[in-house]
Structure formats: structure tokens, C-alpha cells
């Protein structure tokens, strides 16, 4: 009887103690909630927080590490990002999240790298971000060169022979993505007829468009990584000049503004991190997001931000610990992690994941997914 009582007591103590075994850990976010990057970092954070709540409700990362968040606004300033990263590292965060851009991400990563803290850029797409920092730095979003490879594959499949790219030296994204594309397209036998340059925010493409108009022969298509406000202005002026060549774009134009352009947007094909096709996991996520918040997500960044805690969760489950080196190795070995936009794989990459990318086509003011695939690593131009 006594021993029975003891067993019950011990059992009760065990269960009472069980929650205490779950360790609270902190994830630090040094991201831009105001300023020029807020358009990407704000929605990413919204998604990130939802996932953290869900994971905590299930018992935490790997079932045992409850997450608290330490969120700092970097105001789209690299120096502020560095300062925020220093404070977060000093506070002992176990994972660091950096903004959707290469420069502040690399600067912050250089602080978390020596502290052995795994670090993710929210949605930085420059494929060189991880290598610029070191083995604790990871990307999550479809990289520029991967997007370019998928687009080039599409151009070849369409039978396009000649192309023209429009790029801007003002950002790595607007400069390198078209260059990666040209590389991938020519490697597959296509021919580039020329390239144009624009200044971001300028909104005046009349001179560039007049030049394209003067090309003889006209290119089979025009490819650009321009996004708002440049892309709509470019497209209007392009169509305004009577140029009908189809336009290929990147994930930057995955925005309601593009479909708002009406008939001139018809025929645009662009990459995106994810598209909520009927019956897809992403559609289900959007639906539950809408139920919870009353509004549909404004952008796929909500979804990609939502995925990051789940990627971390998969790694913690594999590693069984929040210990820096072990967690780093676990992330680097992740394979086919199922997230709402598709599958993500880090194994065999330079920590810029190999992951599903969606191609969508715009027709009649609506988007339609025409392809969901992970680019063949052999086709992806070297960063």
C-alpha cells in the first residue's frame, strides 16, 4: 500500500515536473518593421509569430523548447541591424532572424556566426548570403539563381529563341536575377538580343522602351526582375509603345498591383515562392489565416515567414538539442521538409535551400499556377 502510494506520488511528481523539463528558449528577430524593407519584413514577421504560437501550443520546438521572441525593429538601417544583433546575441538567443536583404543579413550574420548561433534571413534571395557569412547562416526563400533557372526552363519550353533583359544596378536582386537568367537561357541554346538598364523608383521607362522598340528583329520575350513601382510603369510604357513581346518576371511582381494593371498584364509569367492553388496546403493556410485575422494575407511573405519556425522545429527534432553546432548540422542536413509552399532541402546545398518554386501566369486579371517544381541543381547558375 505504501509502495503504491509512493508510486502514485512519484508519478504525480514526475508529471508535475514534466513541464519544468521544457526549457524556454529565445529566438531573436532583428528585422525591419519600418522603412524600405518593411514591405517584406512586416508580413514575414506576422507569419513567423503565428507559427511560433502553434509550435508552443504543441509543446515547443522538438516538443520541448518553448519559444519566446525578442523582436527588434532595425528600421531598414544596417548599423541598427548590427546593433540589434549584438544585443540579441548578448542576451543569449538560440536562433537569430535577419531582414529580407543581403546587406543587413550579412552584417548581422557576422555577429551571430562567431557566437555559433544559427541564423536565417527572412526572405533574402541573394544566393551568396550564406557563403558571405559562414556555416551558421541559412537562407529560406527561393534564391535568385534558382528563380532564374526555372524561368529559363519555361522560356525554352515555350520555344522562345531570342530574349532581352532589363536590369537595374541599384540592387543585387534587380541586377543579378536577370543576369543569372541570361546565363541559364544561353546555356540552353537561347540567344540574348540585348539588355536595358533602369534606375529604381524612377518610373520613367520611355527612353528604354523607345530603344526596345527600335530593335530589329524584335525579341521573342522580355525578362526583368523589376517590381513595384518600376514594373507596372515599365509594362504600361512598353505596351503603350505597341511592343507585344511576352514578359517574364520574378517573385517581386507577385502583388495585387500587377493584376490591377488589367489587360496589359495578360500573358505575364513569373516565379513566386508559393501560390494558393485550390486544394493546396498554402490555400488552406491562407484560409485559416483569413479566419483568424479577418483579412487574406497581402503577400506570400506571410507564408514563407510562417515556414521558418517549422524548418527550425524539424532541425531541433532531428538534433534533440538547441545547442548551436548540433543545430547547425541538423539544419544543414534537412531533406524534403514539408512546408506550406512545398518542400525545402538543405542537404547538399550551400545553405541556400533547394526548394519548390511556383510559376504563375496572369490571364484575365487572375493568376494561375502553371508549374510547381524544384529547379534541377545542374541548371542553376553558380552564384
Amino acid at each position: 500500500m505504501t509502495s503504491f502510494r509512493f508510486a502514485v506520488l512519484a508519478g504525480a511528481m514526475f508529471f508535475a515536473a514534466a513541464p519544468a523539463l521544457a526549457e524556454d528558449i529565445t529566438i531573436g528577430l532583428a528585422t525591419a518593421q519600418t522603412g524600405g524593407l518593411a514591405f517584406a519584413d512586416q508580413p514575414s514577421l506576422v507569419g513567423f509569430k503565428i507559427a511560433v504560437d502553434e509550435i508552443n501550443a504543441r509543446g515547443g520546438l522538438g516538443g520541448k523548447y518553448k519559444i519566446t521572441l525578442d523582436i527588434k525593429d532595425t528600421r531598414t538601417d544596417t548599423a541598427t541591424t548590427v546593433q540589434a544583433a549584438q544585443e540579441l546575441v548578448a542576451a543569449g538567443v538560440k536562433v537569430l532572424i535577419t531582414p529580407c536583404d543581403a546587406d543587413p543579413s550579412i552584417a548581422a550574420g557576422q555577429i551571430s556566426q562567431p557566437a555559433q548561433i544559427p541564423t536565417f534571413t527572412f526572405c533574402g534571395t541573394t544566393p551568396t548570403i550564406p557563403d558571405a557569412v559562414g556555416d551558421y547562416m541559412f537562407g529560406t526563400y527561393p534564391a535568385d539563381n534558382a528563380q532564374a533557372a526555372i524561368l529559363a526552363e519555361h522560356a525554352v519550353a515555350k520555344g522562345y529563341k531570342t530574349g532581352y533583359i532589363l536590369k537595374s544596378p541599384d540592387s543585387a536582386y534587380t541586377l543579378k536575377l536577370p543576369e543569372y537568367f541570361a546565363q541559364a537561357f544561353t546555356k540552353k541554346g537561347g540567344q540574348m538580343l540585348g539588355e536595358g538598364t533602369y534606375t529604381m523608383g524612377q518610373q520613367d521607362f520611355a527612353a528604354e522602351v523607345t530603344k526596345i522598340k527600335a530593335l530589329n528583329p524584335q525579341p521573342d520575350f522580355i525578362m526583368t526582375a523589376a517590381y513595384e513601382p518600376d514594373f507596372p510603369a515599365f509594362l504600361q510604357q512598353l505596351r503603350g509603345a505597341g511592343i507585344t513581346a511576352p514578359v517574364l518576371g520574378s517573385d517581386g511582381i507577385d502583388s495585387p498591383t500587377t493584376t490591377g494593371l488589367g489587360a496589359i498584364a495578360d500573358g505575364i509569367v513569373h516565379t513566386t515562392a508559393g501560390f494558393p492553388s485550390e486544394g493546396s496546403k498554402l490555400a488552406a493556410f491562407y484560409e485559416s489565416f483569413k479566419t483568424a485575422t479577418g483579412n487574406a494575407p497581402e503577400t506570400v511573405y506571410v507564408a514563407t515567414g510562417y515556414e521558418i519556425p517549422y524548418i527550425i522545429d524539424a532541425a531541433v527534432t532531428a538534433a534533440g538539442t538547441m545547442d548551436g553546432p548540433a543545430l547547425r548540422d541538423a539544419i544543414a542536413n534537412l531533406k524534403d521538409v514539408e512546408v506550406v509552399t512545398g518542400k525545402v532541402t538543405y542537404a547538399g546545398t550551400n545553405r541556400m535551400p533547394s526548394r519548390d518554386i511556383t510559376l504563375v501566369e496572369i490571364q484575365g486579371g487572375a493568376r494561375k499556377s502553371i508549374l510547381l517544381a524544384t529547379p534541377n541543381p545542374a541548371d542553376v547558375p553558380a552564384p
Partner: protein
Amino acid sequence: MDLVLQQIVNAVSLGGIYALLALGLAVVFSIVSLINFAHGELMTVAGYGMFFALAVSLPFPLALLLAVSVAVIAALLTERFAFRPMRKADVTGLLLTSFAVSAILRVIFQNGISARPKPVPLPAGLTGVVEIGSLHIGIVPLLSIVTAALSLALLLLFLKHTTLGKAMRAAAEDFEVLRLMGIKANRVIAMAFAVSGVLAGIAAVLWIAQRGSVDPLMGFVPVLKAFVAAVIGGLGSLSGAVAGGFALGILEVLFQAFLPDAALPYRDAFVLSFVILILVWRPDGLIPAPVSRRS
């Protein structure tokens, strides 16, 4: 030849928008020595006005009217609550105030509306092309030219033929004496801000017609262009602002069109170098403001 004509149309269309913007800065600067860097945010306010108007399905012309009206209201509010209390401050103090107003408005847009761009779809008819001979002119650039010309003409009529307009021109030359005439300083200054709001609203509509969306940071590039144009023309000079706007538009289009490809990424450097040359040649701008004789 066609190419040249086409580029001239491009230059005039862009120059017209710059002229409206620069004029908005100049109207205020000529009277209160304030370079209002929040002028760009007035455009953003107009953009959001248009977005919300279209979101509740107001007819397009009404949306335009609303866009301009909210820009005017915003201009008057910033004058009343930010710039009027700083009236006695020097040029630097006023400049910093305008930076503060601009930064506060941007954060309000980002956190109060959305950090994401909001689409402002244009009626389908506006995205077309007019063919004049072998020239293709987009309806939007054409409307830009017509609107800019009309606005400039109306402003000129207002300045020449109404008491408030005359008072504004007089205030730009000698504010003290104007007050000696019994004309209320606050009214004239408020009027200047209202006019700058109208100009910002019109410029915003033309600017948005090209880009199809409004976002919290939309005003940054235009206000910089306006500032450069106003300096080229002669800070504080109204006719100078118009001249500077067109000069800047023409320079930008010319360099974009005729620079060799390898040099194109440096276009803005070429444009600004040319601006410096203009200022070396005419340090006070193309059409300098009359020197104020305030004692």
C-alpha cells in the same frame, strides 16, 4: 527623326510632372523659406485617398477629386500643427521639421495602413496608345502633358488675377511689407500650403497613373527630383521651378536615350554632373528668385 520626336514627347511628359512637383516646393519656399521634404508624403496621402476612394467604388473622377482634396487637407494640417509653431525657426530648423513630418507620416502609413503597396487600378481606357503619324504616344504621358500644362496655366491665372494670388507673389518678395498692408500672414501662408497640396495631389495622380500602386515610401523619389529641379531653376522662383522641372526631365530622357550602354548605369551621375555645370554657369539657377529685401 521619329526616334528623336518620340524622345521629345517623353521628355516633355516627364518634365511636366517634375515641373508640378518643383513648383509645389517653390510656392512654399518662396514665402516661408521652408524646403518641405514632406511634400512627397502629400503625394502619398493623395495616393491613399485615391486607393480608398476606388476601394469603396467611387467613380474615377470623384476619386481624383478626393485625392487632390486630401493632399490639400494634409498640407494645411502639417502647416498648422508642425510648421506654424516653428515659424520663427531658421532655415535649418524648418528643414529638420519637414524631415520629421515626413518620417512620422511614413511610419503612420506603414503601421496604420500597410507596409505593402496598395493597388490603384486605372480605368482600362487610360492604358492605351494614341498614334499620331508614326509616333506612339501613351494616353498617360499625353494626359501628363495636358494636365501639367493646364495646371500651370490655372496657377498662373490664380497668381496674376486674384488678391490671394497677388498676395502670395508679394509675400515671396517682401513678407513684412505685405503685413503692413493689413494682409494676414497666416492666411497667405496657409494658402501657399494649400496650393502646394493641390500641386502634390495632381502630381500624385500622374505619378500613380504610371505605377499603378501607392506605398508608404512613394514620395521619396519625387521629392528628391523636385528638389533638384527647384535648385536648377533657382530656389524660390516660381518660373524657375517650372524651367528646372522641364530641364531635369529633358536631361534625364536625353541621357537615358543617348548614353552608350556601358555608361547607362551611371546615368544619374551624368544628369547630376550636368546639373552642377548649370549651377556653375548660373549659381542662382536658371531664373533666380528676386533677392528679398527684408531688413
